[in-house]
């Protein structure tokens, strides 16, 4: 409770009581009779002075008593330099997110952090964390100022997104591992978008005192950015205007209405320019077509000309790959013509010629090399020529992809090629009165991906299945199940490749899926996924991951290596890492060249999270709530925290103890005065 709290003010008002009693209230003295006043003289002034002197002591005691009681309930405290600085950990967190590129924010943050570090007592332990993308712990708790300083100086601004929720989780984890009081100094621009949707994620442990150092010099800066890009990943024909175009959304935050010049740049050369009128704090769409690009990977960028608060986000990069249509090997039984028909029709309808289906009867595949195809489809083929089966196994282990469907023929054989197990059971729903439907669908699976699936289970609910195979789902990811629990779509990584198993057929005999629109979408996405075209180009976000290989361990004598070249042309993976690292984090904005372990190469455009472009800071209320009311004022934040280690010692107990002593003294003195008065009477 502070001194301005209502109850404290009421308590202070009671201090007037002893003043009234001692100074304002008329003092009553009982007259004493004497024989004669003949020899007496009046002595009023002296008398008054003496009485006041004597009663002032009692008055002072009573006044002090009330004051101490009021003080005790106001819970006063003193802030003193903590002698036990060893117990407090100084946690310095520097925000290096993309928004810190605006103005001098990052250099200011580093400078303030260095000043704080310089004022740290020699014996105090400190630890440095880096916020931006993911929270990185740069040092262990140490009193070594030189190490801490060099670590701080080595921090560079990044392209990731500052997430205070991630900071809260990290600090909670650190505090659980090493409990103790912590002073967390956060040097950041306090972006509003950095606060997570769930505030509980950012809540800090009770022993952690948060001190915010806001390095944003203005509350909100006008900033335009390319919010989103809609561009083809692969382009077959630049003149095909249905696909050969790029659509960009230009957005402004805290901006007035303005006309901006937008350029489309390919491999550093500006191909097209447009002017677009962006409303205040609004969005505008600009379109570039056709895309006159060369074969191979084209490094494209949509750029906003001119300057603003954050020039780094004025461009958005992406990659468009121009290539010829890819072939898909479709192996089927000689008697099965329907599956190729349905699959090919759906493929043509979805990909607009990006893939060319090459149906081949199983008896004719012996001499075919699957490496010449984007991927291979085995439609109801459980009996493969041994040479081709071996070839497919090699193909799979080196990174190839096979899509296998099990139709009526599969039920006649116990062995299942490539999968590594036998058929367990045949589910023949035709014999029962009701057919099976798709029960569960994993819409995050690339082949079934839907952003907002409808109530009809994303379109899968209408498909009826009459015949399905039960296979061993171990070591496989089940992407869809029938209503009776039978796995319908499974993926098993084999070597560097993928084997996708559809537990029913691709014709209309075992199910009526080919007759439903969702089949086209399924074929399209599955084809893109298995061919790897989605992975090989396009656009990603900073701090997303790419999978370099399927498994981290390899038992082959010849190790498949992967390679990454970052936007600066450096190779972040060491030789050892290139042989075993499974995933790689895209930590920088720009173009990455990646050579996967399966032998394929890709160029990927990486952009910062567009939430970083909104430079609006979080409100003071949110800051206070986050710091549990202990957030320092901006003036205090600007001042380097000298000493930084302060201990708040409550004086409540001392005030009450002193009040008790004063109460005893008051009792003694007042009793003495009363006794004197009785004697006088």
């Amino acid at each position: 409770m502070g001194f301005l709290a209502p109850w404290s003010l009421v308590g202070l008002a009671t201090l007037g009581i002893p003043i009234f009693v001692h100074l304002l209230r008329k003092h009553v003295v009982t007259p004493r009779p004497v024989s004669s006043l003949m020899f007496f003289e009046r002595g009023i002034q002296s008398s008054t002075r003496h009485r006041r002197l004597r009663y002032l002591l009692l008055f002072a005691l009573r006044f002090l008593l009330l004051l101490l009681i009021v003080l005790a309930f106001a819970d006063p405290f003193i802030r003193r330099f903590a002698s036990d600085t060893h117990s407090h950990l100084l946690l310095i967190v520097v925000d290096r997110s993309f928004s810190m590129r605006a103005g001098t924010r990052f250099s200011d943050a580093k400078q303030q952090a260095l000043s704080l570090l310089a004022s740290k007592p020699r014996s105090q332990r400190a630890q440095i964390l880096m916020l931006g993308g993911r929270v990185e712990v740069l040092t262990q708790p140490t009193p070594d100022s030189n190490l801490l300083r060099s670590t701080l100086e080595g921090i560079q601004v990044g392209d990731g997104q500052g997430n205070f929720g991630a900071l809260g989780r990290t600090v909670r984890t650190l505090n659980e591992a090493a409990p103790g009081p912590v002073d967390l100094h956060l040097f950041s621009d306090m972006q509003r978008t950095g606060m997570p949707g769930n505030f509980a994620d950012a809540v800090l442990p009770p022993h952690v005192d948060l001190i915010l150092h806001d390095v944003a010099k203005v509350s909100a800066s006008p900033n335009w950015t390319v919010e989103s890009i809609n561009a083809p990943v692969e382009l077959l024909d630049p003149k095909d205007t249905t696909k050969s175009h790029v659509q960009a959304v230009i957005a402004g935050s805290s901006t007035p209405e303005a006309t901006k010049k937008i350029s489309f740049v390919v491999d550093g050369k500006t191909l097209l320019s447009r002017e677009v009128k962006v409303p205040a704090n609004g969005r505008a769409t600009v379109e570039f077509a056709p895309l006159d690009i060369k074969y191979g990977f084209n490094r494209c960028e949509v750029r906003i000309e001119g300057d603003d608060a954050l020039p780094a986000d004025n461009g958005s990069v992406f990659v468009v790959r121009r290539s010829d249509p890819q072939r898909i090997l479709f192996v089927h039984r000689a008697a099965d013509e329907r599956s190729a028909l349905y699959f090919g029709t759906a493929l043509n309808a979805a990909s607009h010629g990006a893939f060319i289906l090459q149906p081949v009867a199983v008896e004719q595949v012996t001499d075919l090399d699957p490496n010449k195809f984007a991927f291979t489809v085995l439609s109801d083929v459980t009996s493969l020529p041994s040479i081709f089966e071996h070839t497919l196994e090699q193909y799979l282990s080196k990174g190839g992809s096979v899509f296998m469907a099990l139709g009526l023929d599969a039920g006649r054989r116990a062995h299942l090629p490539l999968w590594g197990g036998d058929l367990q059971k045949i589910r023949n729903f035709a014999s029962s009165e009701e057919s099976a439907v798709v029960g569960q669908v994993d819409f995050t699976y690339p082949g079934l991906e839907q952003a907002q699936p409808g109530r009809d289970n994303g379109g899968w609910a209408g498909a009826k299945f009459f015949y399905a195979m039960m296979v061993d789902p171990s070591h496989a990811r089940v992407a869809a199940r029938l209503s009776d629990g039978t796995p319908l779509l499974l993926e098993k990584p084999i070597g560097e490749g993928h084997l996708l198993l559809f537990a029913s057929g691709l014709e209309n005999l075992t199910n009526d899926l080919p007759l439903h629109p969702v089949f086209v979408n399924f074929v399209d996405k599955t084809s893109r996924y298995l061919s790897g075209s989605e992975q090989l180009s396009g656009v990603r976000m900073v701090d997303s991951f790419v999978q370099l290989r399927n498994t981290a361990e390899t038992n082959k004598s010849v190790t498949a290596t992967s390679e990454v070249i970052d936007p600066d042309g450096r190779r972040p993976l060491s030789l050892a890492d290139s042989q075993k690292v499974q995933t790689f984090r895209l930590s920088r904005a720009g173009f990455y060249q990646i050579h996967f372990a399966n032998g394929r190469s890709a160029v990927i455009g990486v952009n910062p999270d567009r939430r970083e472009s909104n430079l609006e800071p979080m409100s003071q209320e949110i800051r206070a709530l986050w710091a549990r009311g202990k957030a320092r004022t901006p003036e205090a934040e600007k001042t380097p925290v000298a000493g930084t280690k302060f201990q708040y010692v409550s004086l409540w107990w001392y005030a009450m103890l002193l009040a008790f002593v004063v109460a005893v003294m008051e009792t003694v003195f007042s009793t003495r005065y009363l006794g004197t008065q009785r004697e006088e009477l």
Partner: protein
Amino acid sequence: MQRFLDPTVLANISSLDLIAKTVVDGFVSGLHRSPDFGFSQEFAEYRAYVQGDDLRHVDWNLFARTERCYLKRYKGETNSQLVVMLDASNSMQYGSRKPVKADYARYLAASLFYLAIRNQHDAAGVIVFDDEVREYVQPSMRQGQLTRLLAALEQAEPRSRTDFFKPLTHLQALLHRRGIVIVISDFYEDPETIVQALEVLRFRGNDVVLFHVLDPQELRPELKGPAILVDLESQQNIEVVPEYVAARYREKLQAHIEQLRTRAQAAGLGYQLLPTDQPLDAVLREYLSVRQAER
């Protein structure tokens, strides 16, 4: 017997008669053991005749034997007259302890009356006054005089103020014989005024003795803090401080006592200061010495 003269002990005795008897009996029995004086009507001494002496006092038998002329002297051979002037003003009711000044004065007067009437066979009377004569009992040796005197003392409750001139004017008209006049008061008046008023009695041949009755608190007042004091006679009040009472007041009171004593002695008046915590034998001793001197 001395303890019976203690005023504190006497204060517990309700009867003035008994008080007076106790005091005087105790006092006289003490004196009988004294070699100094005898108080009978017997022979006292011989003195050589000097010219002018009354020949009636010559011891002719001795002259016949020795042919020397000596005068034979007796003590108490004649009766005297005692008049007590008792101050009964309001100031006399003050007392920090028992007895208050008025009671002490009454004990004193009663003891004098007892001694005078029962032991000395003197005529005794009383005048109770404040600013006027409130009670007057004519000096007499008649039967029951002591009772009347004690009754007058019983009724002498303090009231009003002190004025010496009015009662003295009245007393001059009443006193036809010479005698002993004892004035019992606290004498809160200018000493010059008091002496001027009383020396008239002296001029008429009376032996005048002033018994100055004061409470110990009046002589040595102790004040622990500032206080408002109220005059019992004028009802005026003033605020005083202990420092003044401890120093200046005592000086002024002592100067007053000393001036009164000096002026009284200069005018031929006897003076005796009587704090109320003192035994009463000093009073009786003074009376007897005065009576002795009168002879």
